[in-house]
């Protein structure tokens, strides 16, 4: 049967019904299910983040000192040290403050460590980093409310980079006791 003949056999009632149907909002086509995420990364030497983050402090510090450890493994070690790190972890974390890729992760680990050595490490880094990394170190000193940093931060108020100066001002506002 030709297409023309099939149309000719459509009754007026059927046509009206079809037209009405066509005017009704049609259900949206089912959304294609999103592809599942690919398997997460696993560090060849140290395994998954869960495995890395289950390690004791000494092993986590060992990852930071391992020149062959990946950035991934070091990042996860820093994040776990934020929870369990102590004075013994500070030198290894401090050494990463000048690393452009890991400086934030080092601060992530250092910022919550309840030991004055973390303040000392951050203060010492003020003279070693520039630009955004310097701003990050200043921000962490502000979060820790390190009163021993007041003098150094005061000098940074005059820094030629306005963003550095603003960061110092913001940190000092957190550190200085109210009048």
């Amino acid at each position, binding site marked *: 049967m030709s297409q023309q003949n099939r149309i000719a056999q459509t009754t007026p009632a059927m046509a009206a019904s079809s037209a009405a149907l066509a005017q009704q909002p049609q259900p949206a086509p089912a959304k294609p299910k*999103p592809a599942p995420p690919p398997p*997460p990364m696993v560090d060849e030497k140290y395994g998954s983040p869960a495995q890395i983050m289950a390690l004791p402090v000494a092993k986590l510090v060992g990852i930071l000192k391992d020149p062959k450890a990946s950035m*991934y493994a070091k990042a996860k070690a820093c994040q776990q040290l934020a929870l369990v790190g102590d004075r013994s972890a500070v030198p290894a974390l401090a050494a990463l403050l000048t690393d452009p890729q890991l400086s934030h992760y080092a601060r992530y680990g250092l910022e919550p460590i309840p030991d004055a050595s973390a303040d000392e490490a951050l203060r010492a880094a003020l003279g070693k980093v520039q630009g*955004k990394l310097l701003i990050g170190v200043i921000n962490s000193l502000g979060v820790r409310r390190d009163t021993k940093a007041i003098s150094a931060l005061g000098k940074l108020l005059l820094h030629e980079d306005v963003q550095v100066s603003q960061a110092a001002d913001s940190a000092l506002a957190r550190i200085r006791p109210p009048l």
Partner: protein
Amino acid sequence: MKTELLTRRKLFRGVVQAGALAAAPMIVPSSALGLNGAVPPSDRVTLGGLGIGSRGTRVLQSFLAQGDIQFLAICDVRDERRELIKSMADKKYGNRDCSMYSEQDELWARKDIDALLIATGDRWHALLSILSARAGKDVFCEKPCSMTIAESRALADTYQRLGRIYQAGTQRRNGPNFVRAYELARSGKLGKLTTLHAEAGPGERWAPLTTHDWLPAEPEPPKQVCDWDRWLGPCPWRPYNAHYVQGRWRGYFDFHGGGILEWGSHTVDLCQWAGDVDHTAPIEYEPHGMGSITPYSIHCRYANGLKLVLRDKGFMGLGTCHIRYEGDQGWVETADSLKIEVSENLRSDPWTLPETNRDATANHVRDFVDCVKSRKQPKSNALAAGQAHIASHAAYIAFQLGRKLTFDPATDTFINDAEANRMRSRAMREPWRL
């Protein structure tokens, strides 16, 4: 208090009046004078958007439906989202005026914009809300409103100090059935409140614990297509993968608070409201169900003895985001189906769902716009939202640690638990700070 908004309006009125005197006859469009039902520009709230995804689009539609809102600009790190939102606004207004920006500073610099809708991923919510307030903007921000207790406190403090208007996207405070449940609780019809129940995100959908995994690296798109560095914002760096930016960032520790924050930001918030404890948080958090994704719960207690149970199972099947309020003389339970179940003794006091204003999101948007104009606090203001998020984060921390925690809401400090206290904040990636 003079605000930039009022100053702008006064300035506009002044310009119109001065112009009318100096240049008569002056032709002023009728719409500008509020004729034919249109709202004069001086009474409109001008709005910009920051990171409008799927949920944000739904909220933006509610904004665009308000006659006294003018949406002027969109800022997003993804060009396809910028284009999509611009086309939505331009279609609404029949012009090509909606501006597009990729960096938020450009939006903040727009002195003609009064308020912002923030609907990025959770990682940006608190920081953008705080920086926007400092830039002189009022904010409607999607939930969860913060990633940490420290962010929650900074959010509340900033808005208290600056006097800006903040509405968290916890729209159920303006949902008729949730309002009815609140009224039953606060009117004393349930007797003395004993236990508040808040539904947490179902574990099979949002596991209560998030992962520290990274997805494999993919080539980063050009910055103008997707600015990955700005997408990450204050979060730790990780390699680009398209899954994250396509909305599948939930479940990752750096970006998301799991099921407890996903729904707790709504339901704990409602419980705090009903319990008249918007100004504080529970002092005890005892997790149950660790080691599996469901069922799980956290049993909390306020200083006044009131209990809060955050759990992902065991509700009456009334839809999503259940709450249940129990007193010594009755109980009420409701959720997103709009249905309400009450104890036998309360059934003689029937309640009918109103014929209009059923849409909680539309009501919530209206509440915000009214408050931008009146300078009164909206229902989900920064203090209420901040405290509800502090409670939710404290519950999340207790679940992660798998032990009972005690908390001092006056200082936002866990008592005798150094590890829990370390989890109250996270170092932000440079140059960002609270």
